């Protein structure tokens, strides 16, 4: 032997050391009490003047942005501004067709019998009587785009995975809704889990997979419990297992718990996390649809995306395309934070003007006029009121260089301290950068230092300072050279904030 050190023991120990420093909530360790430091809760806490809870660990975010500030106890009990346990968010609909929130609006559908009475699993039952290609064709024809942020056509992803020769394929539900400001996936996982399962099952059937995984982030402990129970019920009812609904279709689905890393929302990092590795992004190609989990073709879909699937399969692509715009068919569930007069979830067809969402549906800020909104989380955009005259659909937003992300809207109240927000944003980046590529790994820490210098220099006084210049150049380098969407995306809003601090806009 090369040395007296046992290879297998060494690899286990090395892997453990490598992971322990990576995840903030490593499996097997009892959770600490957590305070949500997501953007909405951060602003809410600043507004109320409340400091961080003593003995708490800060997390981004707990997904209760409509009623922050929020905490999660060591026993995983949530508490919001509405009190212990929180309160169900307001669900509203623009137009007359609810897809994503159809059942949410009527309450909790996590129990199988209630879900089935509401029609869940009907699409699956019908689909299993037709060939898998029928599902593929329907999805492709529907033009559905992934709701997780990238907007990639769902049907094309499935087709690629189905066409890649393999003896084993996987479908994964991406329940790592990390974007502060977004909470629709948490709601769906907790109150409509069977719709997620049905979407995943349809995907599995379409691409020829018999193994599915639901990855749920560490910050959503309740979603994990509910999903486990829903899977158990579904299995017992023959909706999962060796013969789904008595057909030859076999499907097993299990829950994989996240361990605390924002970047794991990125699909390749998520795959690494599932494989028990550090949640670092992988270089592409290969794309997961060609070589994902353990090298097998894998479709990773966002939760909201999956909930759309049974509707599309049941009602047909034409009905779906009748909603929204040509470039962005269907509806989108927008999450409005506590800073709006009317927070909650709004499901609206794509194409709705942003100003309508903010002013009419959100009712503007709690304290009157808003300084701006954050759209689409940390990698999205900060939009000032004069920029709200845009239709919310992929082509219109792209033409203006705006990224929709997860569709979360956080109200930035009048008098928002831009330098303070800059520090908040940059420290989030530094905390969550995975460390895989140099510009993001090193640039995030430096951006935070520079932001703190600007804050210390007194906000507007930072105009024209060296730190401001350095930050601008740094953000350009990080955005232009980073490996994944995280490093490429976060510098956008940071640059907006820097410009606001510098008084350049």
């Amino acid at each position, binding site marked *: 032997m*090369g040395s007296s*050190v046992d290879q297998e023991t*060494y690899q286990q120990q090395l892997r453990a050391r490598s992971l322990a420093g990576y995840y903030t909530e490593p499996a097997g360790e009892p959770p600490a009490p957590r305070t949500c430091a997501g953007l909405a809760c951060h602003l809410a806490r600043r507004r109320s003047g409340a400091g961080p809870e003593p003995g708490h660990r800060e997390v981004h975010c707990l997904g209760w942005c409509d009623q922050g500030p929020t905490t999660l106890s060591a026993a995983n009990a949530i508490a919001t501004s509405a009190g212990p346990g929180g309160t169900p968010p307001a669900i509203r609909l623009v137009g007359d067709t609810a897809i994503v929130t159809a059942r949410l609006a009527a309450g909790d559908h996590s129990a199988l019998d209630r879900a089935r009475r509401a029609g869940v699993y009907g699409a699956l039952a019908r689909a299993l009587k037709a060939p898998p290609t029928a599902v593929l064709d329907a999805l492709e024809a529907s033009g559905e785009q992934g709701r997780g942020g990238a907007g990639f056509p769902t049907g094309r992803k499935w087709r690629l995975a189905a066409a890649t020769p393999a003896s084993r394929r996987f479908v994964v539900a991406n329940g790592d809704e990390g974007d502060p400001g977004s909470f629709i996936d948490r709601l769906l996982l907790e109150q409509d889990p069977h719709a997620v399962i049905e979407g995943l099952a349809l995907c599995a059937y379409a691409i020829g997979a018999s193994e599915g995984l639901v990855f749920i982030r560490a910050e959503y402990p309740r979603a994990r419990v509910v999903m486990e129970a829903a899977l158990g019920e579904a299995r017992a009812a023959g909706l999962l297992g060796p013969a789904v609904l008595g057909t030859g279709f076999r499907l097993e689905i299990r829950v994989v718990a996240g361990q605390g890393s924002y970047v794991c929302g990125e699909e390749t990092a998520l795959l690494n996390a599932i494989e028990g590795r550090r949640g670092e992004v992988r*270089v592409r190609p290969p794309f997961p649809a060609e070589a994902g989990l353990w090298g097998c073709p894998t479709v990773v879909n966002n939760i909201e995306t999956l909930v759309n699937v049974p509707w599309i399969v049941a009602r047909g692509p034409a009905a779906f395309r009748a909603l929204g715009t040509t470039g962005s068919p269907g509806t989108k569930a927008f999450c409005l934070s506590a800073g709006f007069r009317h927070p909650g979830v709004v499901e609206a067809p794509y194409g709705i003007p942003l100003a309508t969402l903010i002013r009419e549906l959100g009712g503007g800020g709690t304290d009157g006029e808003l300084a701006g909104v954050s759209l689409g989380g940390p990698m999205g955009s900060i939009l000032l009121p004069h920029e709200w005259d845009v239709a919310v659909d992929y082509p219109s937003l792209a033409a203006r260089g705006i990224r929709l992300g997860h569709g979360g809207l956080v109200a930035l109240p009048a008098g928002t301290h831009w330098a303070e927000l800059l520090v908040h944003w940059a420290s989030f980046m530094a905390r969550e950068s995975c460390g895989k590529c*140099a510009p993001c790994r090193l640039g*995030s820490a430096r951006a935070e230092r520079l932001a703190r210098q600007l804050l210390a220099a007194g906000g507007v006084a930072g105009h024209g300072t060296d730190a401001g210049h350095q930050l601008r150049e740094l953000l350009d380098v990080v955005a232009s*050279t980073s490996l994944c969407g995280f490093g490429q995306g976060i510098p956008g809003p940071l640059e907006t904030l820097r410009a606001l601090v510098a008084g350049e806009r």
Partner: protein
Amino acid sequence: MSPTRTPTISLQLDGQAVTAEPGEFLLDVARRAGLGGALPALCRGEAGTHGPEPEGGCRLCLVEVAGRDRPVAACHTPVTAGLVVRTDSPRLKSLRRGVLELMADETPGAGRETARGGGTAGQFRRLLEAHGVAVRAGAEARPESAVSRAHPYLRFDGEACITCRRCLQACADVQGQFVFEVAGRGAGTRLIFGAGESFLASPCVSCGACVEACPTGALFDRDREPTREAGPVPGARVVQTVCAYCGVGCRLDVTVAPAPDGSGVPTVQAITGTREASVNGGHLCAKGRYAHGYLQSGDRLTTPLLRTPTGWQPLSWDEALAWAARRLREIRDARGPDALGVLTSSRSTNEAAYLLQKLFRTVIGTNNVDCCARVCHSSTAAALQLMTGTGAASASYADIEAARLIVVAGANPTEAHPVVGARIRQAVRRGAALLVVDPRRTELAALAHQHLALLPGTNVALFNALGRVILEEGLADEAYLAERTEGLEGLQGFLGDQPLETAAAVTGIPVESIREAGRRLGQAAGSAGGVLFVTGLGLSELTQGTASVMTLANLALLTGSIGRPGAGVLALRGQNNVQGNADMGAMPDQVTGYQAVADPAVRARVAAVWGREPPARPGLTVPEMLAAARSGHLKALWIQGEDIAQSDPNEAGVRAALESLELLVVQELFHSETARYAHLLLPAAGALEQEGTFTNAERRLQRVRAAVPAPGEARADWTVARDLANQLGAGWDYPDPAAVMAEIARAAPALFGGVDYGRLDGDGLQWPCPRPDHPGTPIVHQDRIVRGRARLMSVPYEPTPETTTGDLPFLLITGRVLHHYNVGTMTRRTPHRELEPADFLEMHPADAGRLGLGDGMEARLRSRYGEARVPVRHSTRVSPGILFLSFHFPDSHTNALTSTHGDPRSKCPEYKVTAVAVTAS
């Protein structure tokens, strides 16, 4: 080592049309097009230092692709037809500078590695300079408190590390050891390895691949320590030669610089693997790379020494050779030429071996010529020669990468032939199937798809059983057998009478496992690609050594493997030039080029070159010479660089033989165990101190060059043979080793006719190379089996006489460990002693517990022949009842235990099975 692709698409790189294969990465295409210089990459080293998957982390190889809105990293961007790419622009330069600035700012030790020197280690520093990035003030002045020097060779300066992960890639993709990981996240990401960042607490094999790959010099080694900050020593130069340890034959780049003591004597400063070498592609093992300190050891022999009643008396070379010539002549005249014998050195050059065997055959007049091939692969050579017409490996190392199924039988290459071991590991990682036949759970056995842990000495029963399964299940390559072999019917009949149940009982392997392995072999037969059989001394060094190799060769023939690319037989040779010694005629029955000395035509042919015929009667083998010495028939022995008193079996018998000689002349580097018995000791030059050629296990002749001068009066071995011959009146006139090789080509034209020093630069030539225009032969038997038709052999299993008894309940296997080499003459005189300070007895914890032997306690071993005391190491690599012991330290007296048994055909001794008793001391 990857198959060549045919470029099929074209794209534009910096305005230049370039062709590529779709799917190739842009960086590789750009580097091939010579644009690599403009395209820096810190996380992707040169080809051969990493696997196929790009890291994508440093972001410096950014390029602009027309139509893309942001720069892309060339290292993980596949090319498509018509791509228009710019690798350099003011914008790209500025972005790269931005990333480099970040790295420089966050790396306090960035300035510790010199930018001069040109090696990989200076890559980061040179990039910083090229992009005008200043190394942060004060960085160079910070103390190197973080650098650990606990390991004898390896150093890590965490403050200079940029976590580019090239060390991870090299460790995984070159060596296959997986020592490194990264921990932490974001800016806190850092390199980790053994607990507390200690290499000694890791499975590190000290191969240095990480040091070679590190672009910052954060990972460095003892040999680079003096030049890390100061830069190259003025007057340093690089000499290319071949490693002097095992028979893999790695090419070395030896950096030689004037000694730091002011004497100005050229000294070895560092050794690295030759990047472009076919054998090792830049890789080395710890021995080849670091264990060179023995050259400067204070106890080198530096002058001829004559034994006198009052001690060793120094002589001049003229005096020494005159004395030797006189004594040789006296003994020959008094006792006849067959009272003399010679052992050539498998550590020395082809030219030295050739001249010494020629001297004894023509000037003295005896065929008593042998070498240590006798005690290692003589069985392999005998079996393969009989069955196929040539005794050497049929395959080459390149077949490892081409193989779909590799069988490693009786070999432990990750320790004994580490660079080949690493190549096999990598082949398995890339998808080759691996089957290991070994009583021990070696590293490769642990990695294998199937491990057949047979009882020591039962190969023949197992291989016959596997052959039976292949035939029974109709999996043999019928077309190959019909066209290229004979004796199939006989074999079928013979194997039909060998029940699998009997084999299972003999070998200890269940019938089902035998059947599974047989099917695995059979399913790989013929058009499925054949099987590559990598063999070692676990087959050869047995009383059934020849039979083991014969029955294995049956399997190679049944599967149609011999002569097929990616298949065949690859016998791993133990010493750097043991292949060459046999090739040169250091065998009692064959002269240069495996020509039978008993054949009058052969004698006439060599006489035309030598001017004198060798005697017709074959001479004595090593064990026979030693027996003849003990019986008083052999009176004089010339030993060139071999320590048989430690290395040969039945130590007591060897020492008795040496003691009874009237004349023993030993050419050596040191006062070895054998040298104690010498009448005349001649100081030898080491392998890094002389010119010539070595031939490795894949029949490759490569040039050996003197990197440094030999100390004192020590001399190159070939000159000693020449000058002795001239003292004996031979009138030999060889100005240099090239002239010797020119004669070898004439003496054995079928194998070496085209070999010439003019053709031996670089990767040299693989014999047979019969003509000056012949390219050499990577795969023997490719067009036809050398002997016409290969003979299938029906050989029954016969148990070794070394059986266990109630009194001797254990079976002992002897062999090598990673950090030492054979009798340890060289490695024991280096810091390798710190890596492995002593021989140890591997014993299953259950046995050890029963005997009350704690880990590290000394055990007393007793065999029918002798005793030894060695520390015990608990290990599940051996099964209960089986023991393993190395023989690197003379005080262990491992070979006091080994038996007098040997293979009756090859005379190879049985090192691999000895019945012993073990007690607590």
